[in-house]
């Protein structure tokens, strides 16, 4: 009886929808038809309850909902669209999505270490430390012992899978380090304080993981922390005060090593020996400044990592980070942040293209947002890196009129709440920060080096605690839903690889 009632209800509802479609005047609108098509795509979704053989976690550092919005428009405008209508590869109905609460145990505004740690361990962590339990204290080596958490890469190694980590930041930087390191301070990249014996520096921990077989493929920047002080090699310059040569140690373990695009292209990706590639002494270049023959792109590194790791028939775990979206935002230089955002988008597309939804869970997310914000009321197609143009009375595209603020001056679409772009400046020998907004034209605002105007003066723009989004495709991707705590991402991955 219950079934019959339900069926009748469904029929009645369907009938009323059909009636509405016939009568509403907007039924012939493309917006209306696209809306209906979107519903059909959602109705066609089938939960994928396969066991995931492979998991790829793609993180764009500092790419919260706002920054991702800006990247969507920038990417679209680069392709000749107005921008707003653009759909990034992970914004299709193929991907399930949720909002993510990124705060740390003791921080409303998170940093990249505990946020990445939460995705790699399943628990929230304390500010500025990586993969230690909630009793551990930042910068206190004595609280390391007994507080080390098990990371996803170790669990996957135990399950017979291979592990890869790729980043455009230093491989010892917070997000990639969260794959393999446990440290009371994210900055102990090449040394720990004197007397600290409970842990090693992060670079050493990477080579230890390579030796232990819990990391098989590592590619990114940060060469200076793997080479003795002042040792030069393939364009890298070492900075290790203990004079340990970790590159020599890695190659001694049989690892292949590369420092530039030519070396990258000659790597054997048959999975027979570990790969360590360090393309820069510090972070890899911003995408806007990258020379093709010097460093591979993030998409190229993603392709190489998947080709290498997929040789393991038991599968793999791969974390990929676009590390410099964050740095562009910190600099208040949206032009570079968004170009690295597009490089991330291309890496996601590459990962999706090279894998099968039947056996590979792809998760796309960010660790935190920035103090980025957007002005109004701009017309459609206002260049996301440029000035805010007025809404047109007729047609779609913005009018030719540049909007001005109450001070009579134009303003950009993007602004930052704080940072070096502050309009308040302190003169030499003066006590107060004072100022007014400079004049601005479109050519200046869209220049690659332009720093967006900000309010609060700070030497570096800050993160914010605002939510980020998470998108997922493949086995158990439908568990990504609603508004979740960041550590839940680990549990989606863990459930997917263990599902019976």
């Amino acid at each position: 009886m219950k079934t019959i009632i339900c069926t009748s209800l469904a029929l009645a509802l369907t009938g009323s929808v059909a009636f509405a479609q016939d009568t509403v005047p907007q039924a012939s609108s493309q917006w209306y038809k696209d809306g209906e098509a979107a519903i059909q795509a959602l109705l066609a979704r089938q939960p994928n309850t396969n066991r995931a053989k492979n998991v790829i976690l793609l993180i764009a550092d500092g790419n919260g909902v706002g920054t991702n919005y800006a990247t969507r428009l920038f990417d679209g405008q680069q392709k000749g669209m107005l921008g707003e209508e653009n759909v990034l590869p992970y914004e299709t109905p193929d991907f399930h999505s949720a909002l993510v609460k990124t705060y740390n145990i003791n921080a409303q505004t998170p940093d990249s270490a505990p946020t990445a740690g939460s995705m790699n361990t399943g628990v929230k962590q304390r500010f500025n430390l990586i993969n230690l339990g909630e009793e551990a204290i930042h910068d206190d080596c004595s609280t390391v012992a007994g507080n080390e958490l098990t990371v996803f890469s170790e669990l996957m190694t135990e399950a017979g899978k291979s592990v890869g980590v790729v980043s455009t930041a230093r491989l010892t930087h917070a997000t990639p380090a969260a794959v393999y390191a446990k440290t009371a301070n994210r900055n102990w990249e090449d040394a720990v304080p004197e007397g600290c014996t409970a842990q090693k520096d992060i670079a050493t921990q990477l080579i230890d993981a390579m030796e232990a077989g819990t990391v098989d493929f590592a590619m990114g920047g940060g060469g200076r922390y793997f080479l003795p002080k002042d040792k030069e090699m393939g364009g890298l310059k070492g900075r290790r005060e203990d004079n340990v040569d970790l590159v020599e140690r890695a190659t001694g373990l049989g690892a292949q090593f590369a420092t530039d695009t030519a070396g990258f292209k000659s790597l054997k990706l048959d999975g027979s020996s570990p790969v360590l590639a360090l393309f820069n002494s510090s972070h890899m270049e911003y995408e806007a400044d990258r020379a093709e023959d010097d460093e591979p792109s993030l998409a190229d590194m993603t392709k190489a990592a998947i080709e290498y790791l997929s040789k393991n028939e038991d599968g793999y775990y791969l974390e990929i980070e676009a590390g410099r979206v964050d740095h562009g935002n910190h600099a208040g230089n949206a032009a570079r942040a968004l170009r690295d955002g597009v490089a991330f988008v291309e890496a996601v597309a590459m990962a999706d293209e090279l894998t099968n939804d039947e056996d590979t869970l792809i998760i796309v997310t960010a660790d935190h947002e920035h103090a980025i914000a957007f002005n109004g009321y701009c017309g459609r197609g206002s260049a996301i890196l440029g000035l805010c143009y007025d809404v047109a009375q007729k047609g779609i595209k913005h009018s030719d009129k540049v909007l001005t603020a109450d001070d009579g001056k134009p303003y950009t679409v993007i602004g930052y709440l704080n940072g070096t772009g502050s309009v308040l400046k302190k003169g030499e020998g003066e006590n107060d920060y004072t100022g007014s907004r400079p004049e601005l034209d479109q050519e200046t605002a869209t220049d690659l080096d332009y720093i967006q105007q900000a309010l609060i003066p700070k030497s570096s723009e800050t993160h914010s605690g605002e939510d980020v989004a998470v998108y997922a495709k493949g086995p158990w991707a439908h568990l990504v839903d609603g508004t979740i705590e960041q550590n839940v991402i680990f549990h989606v991955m863990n459930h997917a690889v263990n599902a019976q």
Partner: protein
Amino acid sequence: MNRRQLVAGLGLAPLAWYLLPETAGAKEAPLKLRTLYNKDRSFSDLAHSLEGTRVSVGGYMAPPLKADSQFFVLTKIPMAVCPFCETEAEWPRDILAVYTKRIVDVVAFNSKIVTRGVLELGTFKDPETGFVSRARLSDAVYERA
């Protein structure tokens, strides 16, 4: 620089500031610092063509190490720290060392400036500070943009 801006600059500039000479070159749009380098960090054709001549370059004054210096580092985006005080700072590769005609009157690190001097290319280690530069402006003057 239009006339109104120049007049405003004159009105606001502290006495110790040395304004750009009103030569024909000074009226051209300043070069963008990044145009002096190729992406592989070699000098661009533009840089080679201008070597030894007086050029105007836009950028920001990194905080100088000490007072009463005749040297500062010009950066393409604002850098809040000086090149000596902060070894961990991530310096962009395309910077210019600027050797000024007069003692530097410090400008806030995030105020855009235009500096004009003779472009010198090639590695040079400053005997006084130890600062190694690949490109320099010598006999330079500067002003707020």
